[in-house]
């Protein structure tokens, strides 16, 4: 084979790497804003700074919660995904879909509903004989597990669909039990996917804001909620949050192992589903029951109850047309931009070993550990700085135009959810059959045609999963939306939060129902896309 001209090769190799680092460099932008916040932020009151000695216990509890939620979500999500993809049992399709829907319930809303229903006089608390409020670390563990397990289920199911049937069928022929086949064949293949799921789950927990505040679980973001008006404190807590990322990153590396080079060498023949062994039926239905009853039906019944009681009391509901269109515009666009931004680093880092690929990957992950409120503060102060610098007294500046178009909001979403998109996309890219691409290249196909005909179909399930995750995450997002949304625009997430906090439950219920319906629509669209 004739070697390609050296200049062309180096340019081809250079551009994606440069693009990747360019995107990662953008992550520094909110940090620059946070620095400006520290330098220029005027304060309303002089308050004593948060002592570092108070910070470390919070770091410990934050890490403990992140690791426990990650472990429970990984176990539960993996089992649900495995059952969904490998076994045939009554109700599989519907139950698997329903088990992923808790994803659409904002964690602060789920926390409020769980706390209310598990209270001594709540529907479940009275049934279980609870005498005390259901709150604190254990309650946060339950709520965040319910919120995070669907992430794992979606990612692991996408990975399992790409597992070749051959080795499994051979092992079955040789008499290996399902458990043995799972441990020996499936688990090693799942390690990279688990590592990516851990990125999403652990960092989701570390940066979760509302659920821990509602459940009075003393972690770093709880402290951030208490002292959010003081930028110096917020920065100190931000430092603690970044400190939490290091052990998590180490764990991700450990879990990932050397599996990243494992690729499909040909289009895999898909595993055919087998009937589920009888002894696995009970735990499988139990896992579905746990997710669907507590994560979906309980919130659904509660919010329907709010709407119904509003109707009964002839309460008037707010008009939500404008709020829905805002939510759709920001969410559809934000998820798309984040997906595009995540695709370049995921593609570059999955396709080749680069000198600083480990560092680049860690940089992508680290963006997730920064809570939305800090990213929002960073971008906000940057906007103020830019406005100050650009303003020549002639009226509206370009910064204001960009702000009013919602571009800073979309940028905030991209920075906040970049690693979620990356973690969802990279396993799919690792599954691309390189030999097919090489054959196409040898036959003279252009890069664009190879991407369209080979690469895109191969990563389609990953793209679908990533878009779904990003869409729902952005639809629920609150701190960035609150701070960077253009004037006069509100979203459903804000409406739920606002109405629920004010005790206007019928409005909160209606907005929450619409958010769930939107998530369901996106699920159905993407399912249909996959089938076609």
């Amino acid at each position, binding site marked *: 084979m004739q070697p390609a001209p050296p200049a062309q090769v180096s340019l081809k190799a250079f551009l994606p790497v440069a693009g990747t680092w360019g995107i990662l460099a953008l992550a520094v932008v909110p940090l620059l804003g946070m620095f400006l916040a520290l330098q220029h932020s005027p*304060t309303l009151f002089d*308050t004593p700074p948060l002592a570092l000695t108070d910070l470390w216990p919070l770091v410990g509890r934050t890490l403990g919660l992140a690791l426990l939620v990650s472990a429970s979500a990984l176990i539960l999500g993996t089992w649900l995904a495995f059952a969904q993809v490998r076994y045939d049992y009554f109700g599989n399709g519907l139950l698997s879909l329903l088990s992923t829907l808790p994803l659409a319930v904002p964690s602060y809303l789920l926390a409020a509903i769980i706390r209310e229903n598990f209270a001594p*006089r709540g529907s479940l608390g009275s049934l279980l004989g609870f005498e005390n409020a259901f709150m604190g670390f254990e309650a946060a563990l339950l709520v965040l597990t319910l919120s995070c397990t669907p992430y794992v289920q979606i990612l692991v199911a996408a990975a399992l669909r790409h597992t070749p049937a051959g080795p499994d069928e051979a092992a079955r022929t040789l008499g290996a039990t399902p458990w043995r086949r799972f441990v020996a064949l499936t688990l090693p293949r799942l390690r990279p996917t688990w590592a990516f799921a851990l990125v999403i789950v652990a960092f989701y927990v570390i940066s979760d804001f509302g659920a821990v*505040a509602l459940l009075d679980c003393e972690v770093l973001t709880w402290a951030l909620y*208490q002292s959010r008006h003081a930028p110096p404190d917020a920065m100190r807590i931000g430092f603690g949050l970044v400190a939490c990322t290091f052990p998590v990153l180490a764990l991700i590396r450990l879990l990932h192992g050397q599996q990243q080079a494992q690729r499909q060498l040909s289009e895999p023949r898909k595993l055919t589903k087998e009937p589920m062994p009888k002894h696995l039926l009970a735990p499988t239905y139990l896992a579905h029951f746990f997710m669907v009853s507590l994560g979906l039906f309980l919130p659904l019944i509660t919010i329907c109850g709010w709407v119904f009681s509003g109707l009964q009391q002839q*309460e008037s509901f707010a*008009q939500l047309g404008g709020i829905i269109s805002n939510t759709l515009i920001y969410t559809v666009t934000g998820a798309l931009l984040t997906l595009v931004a995540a695709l370049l680093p995921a593609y570059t880092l999955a396709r080749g070993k680069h000198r600083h690929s480990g560092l680049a990957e860690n940089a992508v992950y680290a963006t997730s550990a920064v809570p939305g409120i800090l990213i929002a503060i960073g971008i906000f102060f940057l906007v*103020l700085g830019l406005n100050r610098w650009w303003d020549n007294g002639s009226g509206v500046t370009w910064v204001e135009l960009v702000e009013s178009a919602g571009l800073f909001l979309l940028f905030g979403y991209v920075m906040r959810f970049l690693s979620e998109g990356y973690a969802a996309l990279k396993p799919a890219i690792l599954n691309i059959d390189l030999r097919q691409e090489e054959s196409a290249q040898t036959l003279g196909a252009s890069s664009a045609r190879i991407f369209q005909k080979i690469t895109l179909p191969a990563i389609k399930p990953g793209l679908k999963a990533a878009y779904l995750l990003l869409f729902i995450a952005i639809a629920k997002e609150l701190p960035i939306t609150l701070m960077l949304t253009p004037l006069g625009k509100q979203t459903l997430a804000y409406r739920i939060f606002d109405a629920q906090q004010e005790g*206007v439950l019928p409005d909160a219920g*209606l907005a929450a129902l619409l958010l769930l319906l939107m998530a369901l629509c996106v699920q159905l669209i993407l399912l249909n896309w996959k089938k076609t």
Partner: protein
Amino acid sequence: MLFPQMILRRVPLLGIILALAACSKNETKPIKEPTDAVAATKNEQRDSITLYSGRSQVLIEPLLTEFTQRTGIKVDVRYDKSTQNLATRLLSEGAQSKADVFFAQDSGYLGALAKQNVLAQLPEALLALVPATHRDAQGKWIATSGRARVLVYDPSAVQPDDLPKTLSELTDSKWKDKLGWAPGNASFQAHVSALRHLWGEEKAAEWLSKIKDLNPKTYPKNSPQVKGVSNGEIQIGWVNHYYLHKLKAANPELKAANYSFSQAQDAGNVMMLSGIGIVSHSKKKEAAQKLVEHLLSEKSQQHFTTKIYEYPTRTGIKANAALPDISSLMSHVPQEHLADVGGTLKMLRDLKLQ
């Protein structure tokens, strides 16, 4: 081109969402066209002002819609549930701020902004609409409505006669593990500022410390405390009065009742004020003033009390019949003391309550 086709196929589903929204009743419909309404001209329609509101959208949106329909002035609103965040934002933006009017859930932040010259002087005629206790001494903000600090209790577990006669008595050990509070909440902090003024620093800190020893459950806000009482999580919460009425409007079965301390002028009986001020950098002060006038109009004041269950601040407006007359029980705290939030935050941090 498969993806767009799929989206098109699912348009009916998205249509359901929009239809649901369209079917919902329009809360923002004006209450009634006022008799002195000024017909909006095409030119006025182009006017707009920007409001930074720490008051919830669900509470004030109908009033703003009515204002726009009456005057033709559009109101662009930036909402933030945290008045602290919004006040800090306004201060940080300085002259760059688009805000013309600042509407605060708690007057403490208005006082702090007034001290930093972020708010402009209001006209005397406007200030005269409310009693002197319901406005800034320098005339830079004015209260639009009030919320009484009360205890919310579980009537099935506690008889009103057993409740403490004064706030000081709440430290009795019989309430151990039965109380709830929200130290992160702005009204809580404003009430602590009031206690520091009424009792002095030492007694206020001692009282907080004793309550802390009773192991109260911490809530992020007031409304979850009311639900917590009804759900049996706690027997007593320390809240603003109006959450109970709003929650009961949606659920009459709620097992909770409000209680004001029976001793007159007790430190537990304090009125928290929501208020409004015009931003000093505003280039639309005339339109901004119209909005302030609108919120203090008889009709808006009626809205605050009948729909939101708050106490009106304008002289001569009767409070909602569902609200008890507690005016004789109230302690009066000069507003400048409520604005000393910094000292309160320091006290709360020293006591590890922040």
